[in-house]
């Protein structure tokens, strides 16, 4: 005859339990690892239908611990029975690992056994315990459940015809009776028999010795609420019931009929009762009877999901760690944009773009804010100045305190500010100067080494980022990052402010790297900030008047320009050609060009340049072609930089005519000067754009 196989219990922890354990540890337990009473519950086994195969899958036998498990007056939820238990929480993972698990297990098993023999009741038969370690800093909970069950030796066997349908033996009336009895008493174990009138009766297992006085042997049923939904195998709680019967009534329990109660509700008219009856037998030997009072060995540690004997872990950081919650909320907010409006938006492309902001002033602060709104996770600041008293009102990452004691360094202060806004941001500030043409490096080792390391630092920073924002307050400081960025094929966004005008543009990709776009047309040669210049950038900072030194602008201008720069980046990143995206053809009329959308990304156009005029509340898209004699991005300059490195840069910084000679602009200048000589012009002042 086949051996009876038991379906094991599986722990099912509700998150509230971990919250309660945390509170308990902080308020009550503190460092104590003493046992705390815990009540679990389990229900009759359920099945669900697999959508794909249409088959019924038996759910595991779950022992649930949840919100009220620590309460002393725990009431089983409707349709379930309770199991008493205990929890021991250890203070370190080492203690958790080191505790003598076998000893602990045996202690619990002994407790159950003593209870059976001394009190003769079934209250502790389905007792369980769990050991835990709560890592409150990381919101991780390590735990290991055990459901001690006594091993029957020899093992129980079941009749060859196995578990039969209960309603073959019991009529609907009897089954309904049992069902309502259990509904009222919610007991995990019970007896079913017949009273003196032959009517079915049910009662507690503790009444075993007298219960079956008027019941014939065929009608004597020992029942239990079965968490197993597997028709072939009964649930774990049966084991200790069998051990109980063998210990207390060895002479009359070598063959018993077990009722596996598996009906939560009476079945609908088309369905059948699920409960089953089986006849279990056990071989009796004289030593078995005499050893009836010695505690059998017990098994029951829960296996981990890999099937090994080891603990489990609940990672509740996503729910409890506030930084994680913030990150999730930010992501969700962006996804709403995607779900509701633009399903083809690639948000990850934007949020994973590493942005380097050269300049942490008005433009830098607003650019950083807009980037964070897009979910960008890496923002690095470079600035050489300190926060001054006039800054906080126009530069939203700084506050009054940052100006005191000489002022905090802007780059680091901006980074710290970002972290306060969103802790999950990856941000660093670097206080450093960017060497520039027209500002010669003094010819001494210290200065030269400083310049060298500044250049190397800038090269490294540009290397480590995907997009570089040029947000400084001078023309010539943008030269070096333009050259390095073009050489490294990075996305460069440039923003510059006048009093009530702004320029925002993206630098064109390096001419030698242009091929064909997604639309089959060749990439356009787009220019950089310096492409329209006929002179090299020079010193524009010395001998300025006060109003020229601090870029005085209409306050609303910087946020507009900064936001525009970020949105151009967003649109560019969504374009299949990226850095090589074609701008919309320039319109000569004022109307927006909606016809030719082939150049657009999912967010719309990717302009090359936008010149804004705040006095007219107008922005004009422009396209500037790349100039082959440009001091910033022409192949001549880039090749010279790539072959000669710092030496070339040093010449650019120190020698006023070097770049013009290198690119051939000097000759052009001479030629055009000669042409100009022959014509009388009215000269206007140059706008510093």
């Amino acid at each position, binding site marked *: 005859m086949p*051996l009876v*196989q*038991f*379906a*094991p219990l*599986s*722990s*099912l*922890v*509700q*998150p509230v*339990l*971990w919250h309660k354990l945390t509170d308990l540890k902080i308020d009550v337990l503190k460092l104590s690892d003493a046992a705390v009473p815990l009540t679990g519950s389990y229900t009759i086994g*359920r099945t*669900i239908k*697999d*959508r794909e195969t249409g088959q019924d*899958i*038996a*759910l*595991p*036998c779950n022992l*649930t611990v949840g919100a009220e498990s620590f309460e002393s007056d725990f009431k089983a*939820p*409707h349709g379930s029975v309770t199991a008493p238990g205990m929890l021991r929480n250890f203070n370190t993972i080492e203690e958790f690992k080191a505790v003598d*698990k*076998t000893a602990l297990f045996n202690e619990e098993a002994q407790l159950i056994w003593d209870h059976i023999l001394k009190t003769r009741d079934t209250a502790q038969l389905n007792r369980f315990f769990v050991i835990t370690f709560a890592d409150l800093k990381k919101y991780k*909970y*390590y*735990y290991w459940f055990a459901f001690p069950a006594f*091993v029957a030796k020899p*093992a129980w066997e079941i009749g060859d015809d196995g578990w039969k349908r209960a309603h073959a033996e019991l009529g609907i009336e009897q089954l309904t009776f049992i069902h309502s009895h259990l509904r009222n008493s919610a007991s995990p174990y019970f007896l079913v028999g017949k009273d003196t009138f032959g009517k079915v009766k049910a009662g507690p297992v503790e009444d075993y010795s007298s219960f079956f006085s008027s019941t014939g042997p065929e009608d004597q049923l020992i029942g239990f609420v079965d968490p*197993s939904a597997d028709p*072939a*195998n009964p649930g774990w709680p049966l084991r200790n019931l069998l051990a109980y019967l063998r210990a207390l009534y060895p002479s009359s329990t070598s063959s018993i009929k077990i009722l596996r109660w598996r009906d939560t509700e009476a079945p609908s008219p088309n369905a059948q009762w699920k409960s089953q009856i089986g006849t279990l037998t056990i071989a009796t030997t004289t030593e078995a009877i005499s050893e009836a009072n010695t505690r059998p060995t017990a*098994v029951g*540690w829960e*296996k*981990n*999901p*890999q*099937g*090994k*004997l*080891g*603990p*489990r*872990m*609940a*990672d*509740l950081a*996503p*729910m409890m760690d506030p930084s994680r919650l913030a990150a999730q909320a930010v*992501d*969700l907010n962006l*996804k*709403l944009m*995607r*779900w509701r409006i633009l399903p083809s938006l690639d948000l*990850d492309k934007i949020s994973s773009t590493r942005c380097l902001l050269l300049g942490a002033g008005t433009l830098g602060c607003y650019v950083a804010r807009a980037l964070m709104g897009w979910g960008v996770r890496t923002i690095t600041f470079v600035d050489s100045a300190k926060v001054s008293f006039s800054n906080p009102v126009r530069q939203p990452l700084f506050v009054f305190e940052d100006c005191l004691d000489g002022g905090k360094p802007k780059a680091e202060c901006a980074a710290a500010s970002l972290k306060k806004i969103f802790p999950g941001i990856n941000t660093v500030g670097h206080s450093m100067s960017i060497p520039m043409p027209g500002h010669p490096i003094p010819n001494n080792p210290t200065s030269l080494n400083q310049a060298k390391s500044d250049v190397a630092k800038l090269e490294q920073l540009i290397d480590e980022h995907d997009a570089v924002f040029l947000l400084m307050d001078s023309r010539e400081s943008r030269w070096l990052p333009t050259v390095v960025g073009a050489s490294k094929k990075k996305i460069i966004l440039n923003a510059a402010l006048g009093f009530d005008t702004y320029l925002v543009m993206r630098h064109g990709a390096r001419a030698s790297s242009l091929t064909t776009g997604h639309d089959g047309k060749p990439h356009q040669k787009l220019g950089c900030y310096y492409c329209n210049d006929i002179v090299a950038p020079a010193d524009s900072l010395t001998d300025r008047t006060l109003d020229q030194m601090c870029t005085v602008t209409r306050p609303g201008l910087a946020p507009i320009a900064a936001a525009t720069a970020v949105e151009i980046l967003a649109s560019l990143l969504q374009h299949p050609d990226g850095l090589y995206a074609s701008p919309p053809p320039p319109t000569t009329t004022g109307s927006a060009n909606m016809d030719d959308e082939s150049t657009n990304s999912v967010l719309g156009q990717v302009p090359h340049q936008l010149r804004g005029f705040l006095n007219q509340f107008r922005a004009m898209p422009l396209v500037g072609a790349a100039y082959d004699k440009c001091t910033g991005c022409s192949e001549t300059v880039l090749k010279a930089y790539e072959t000669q490195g710092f030496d070339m840069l040093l010449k650019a910084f120190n020698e006023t005519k070097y770049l013009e000679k290198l690119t051939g602009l000097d000759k052009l200048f001479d030629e055009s000067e000669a042409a100009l000589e022959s014509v009388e012009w009215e000269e206007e002042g140059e706008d510093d754009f």
Partner: protein
Amino acid sequence: MFTRDQFERACQVFAKKHSQWKWASARNPGYGYLMRTTTHMRKSFVQTDELAELVEDLEEGVEVITSADLASSLTVNVVENIVYCASFSVPAFYFAVHNSSGAPLPLNEIIQTSFFKISLPKDATSNDFALTVPSGSFPLLSQGDHPTLGAPWWYFHPCETDKAVGEFMKEEDQALCEDERLIRWMEIWLMIVGNVLNV
């Protein structure tokens, strides 16, 4: 449309008829909600073996167990709440999904449990979720603050609920008493939710 009192009344009578649902009262009157816990399964499960070093060599002897053991890691626990949404004056369906250890499931895994009826197109990046909304009857899934508990829960946006259920209510017997009407409203609404979820 429900007032808060009507909502509470509807929940009480509904819970009486459908005993799986229980009323949970809150500190503030009118902020109570219906709750129910159900178990579901997920299709597949890949767990990192970070706990491998904690595995022990315990003498467990020859054990006769069944295969249901390994399925335990595929169990998910779903807590369902029916909460009053003040902005739309209707009940809203909130739920939270956890695995057997109590940890919450990310959205892409929730969709793949037996809790969800329709299978949605698989997406390359995780956490992406795009629902095609048949006009009118089916609201969008979002994550938001539970009105009473404050924690982030998943919920179906209730903007279309009133209209959708209203259509069905028109077909109902108008001679029902108030309580029966309320119960019927809830049942119809849950059927609509049931188009997408196994409730």
